[in-house]
């Protein structure tokens, strides 16, 4: 006989989600990235609200598969993942820990909070390699939807940033 109620708490679900790496920026967990909106447990079903970074993010499918797999292993009989668009995901939702990890990963986080995109883009990003602010945006589009490409005039190296949104 399987029990009718879950043997795990919402805190344990959050903890589990906090160990799932983002498929494209694996130094961050889904929780640190800010894409988990809410968690609910109804009986042995877990509902997770997933907020996509960008609508066309190719990693979205991999995130869903990983969430489903991990929560079932935690003991969920079924996992429902709702795609939630409100409030829309923003780089402001990155946790402070995430920002530190991004720099170590070589990806410059944008200033926060974001008020005007053009002002943010005009603000030089700090080079994650040498710490200089003598940098410029080279492309507002990058290797994934959530990244931009920059160039550092001090260490003369290109680097990537997270796209302010």
């Amino acid at each position: 006989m399987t029990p009718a109620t879950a043997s795990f708490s919402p805190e344990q679900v959050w903890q589990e989600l906090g160990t799932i790496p983002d498929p494209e920026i694996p130094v961050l967990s889904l929780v640190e990235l800010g894409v988990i909106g809410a968690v609910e447990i109804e009986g042995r079903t877990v509902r997770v609200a997933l907020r996509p970074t960008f609508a066309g993010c190719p990693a979205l499918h991999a995130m869903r598969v990983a969430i489903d797999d991990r929560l079932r292993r935690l003991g969920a009989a079924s996992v429902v993942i709702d795609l939630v668009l409100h409030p829309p995901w923003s780089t402001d939702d990155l946790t402070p820990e995430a920002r530190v990890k991004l720099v170590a990963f070589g990806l410059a986080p944008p200033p926060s909070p974001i008020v005007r995109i053009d002002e943010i883009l005009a603000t030089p990003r700090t080079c994650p390699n040498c710490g200089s602010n003598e940098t410029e945006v080279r492309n507002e589009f990058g290797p994934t939807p959530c990244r931009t490409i920059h160039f550092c005039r001090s260490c003369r190296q290109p680097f990537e940033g997270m796209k302010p949104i």
Partner: protein
Amino acid sequence: MKPGLRSPLAEALLALADDELILAHRDSEWTGHAPILEEDIAFANIALDELGHAALWYRLVADLREEDAERYPDRLVFHRPAGAFRNVRLVEHPKGDWAFTIVRQFLFDSAEQVRLKALAAHPQASLAQTAAKILTEERYHLRHLSAWVTRLAQGTPESKHRMQAALDHLWPLAGQLFQTLPGEAILVDAGAWPASPMLGIEWQAQVTDFLTGCGLTIPARTSPDESGRQIHSAHLEPLLAEMQSVARLEPQGEW
């Protein structure tokens, strides 16, 4: 939402979704072929964004028709014949030269922004939230496209000539974006949709200002092509034949 409005709303949103899908496919044709590497990256991203926006609209269509939001979009995209698509003819045209692609994307994205701003105020939350989400991403498109329009229109005589030629060709086609959408008349009567012709006036004033400011000439008014979104050019079938080929080889396939 009143039950009688679900079906017309699904029709209107399907038209918006099809526009995004077909344009995304045309944009993706630059992957590996764009004039410079930076633009290869930019246009691959723009294509992916438009595809993502199409997917959001298709999900809403699925909800309105009480279909499976995970599977129904694939059925719409990969298993509909050309005659069932509701996109405008503007997005079907092959990608042309770089000026043609830039002018088309500029006209489309600026039109989309006008419509999305109106839809972001829609009383139905799922619709308003989808429009708001897409708007956050579209800001990047318009920044990028506006810069390219300015650069090419004010560049060399050759680039200006190509931009004007593209505008002359595309301007009459772009008008179709603001013809009344399928299902729209019922929705507008119920106060549940912004009337496209009204939005079109706003859009036309905006882009006319911008394009003439760049030194381009808005083509003289010609008799508009009033045929609806069920009529397609000869370009759609070959596009779909390619896009749908893999899915149709194995209709029950899972990947």
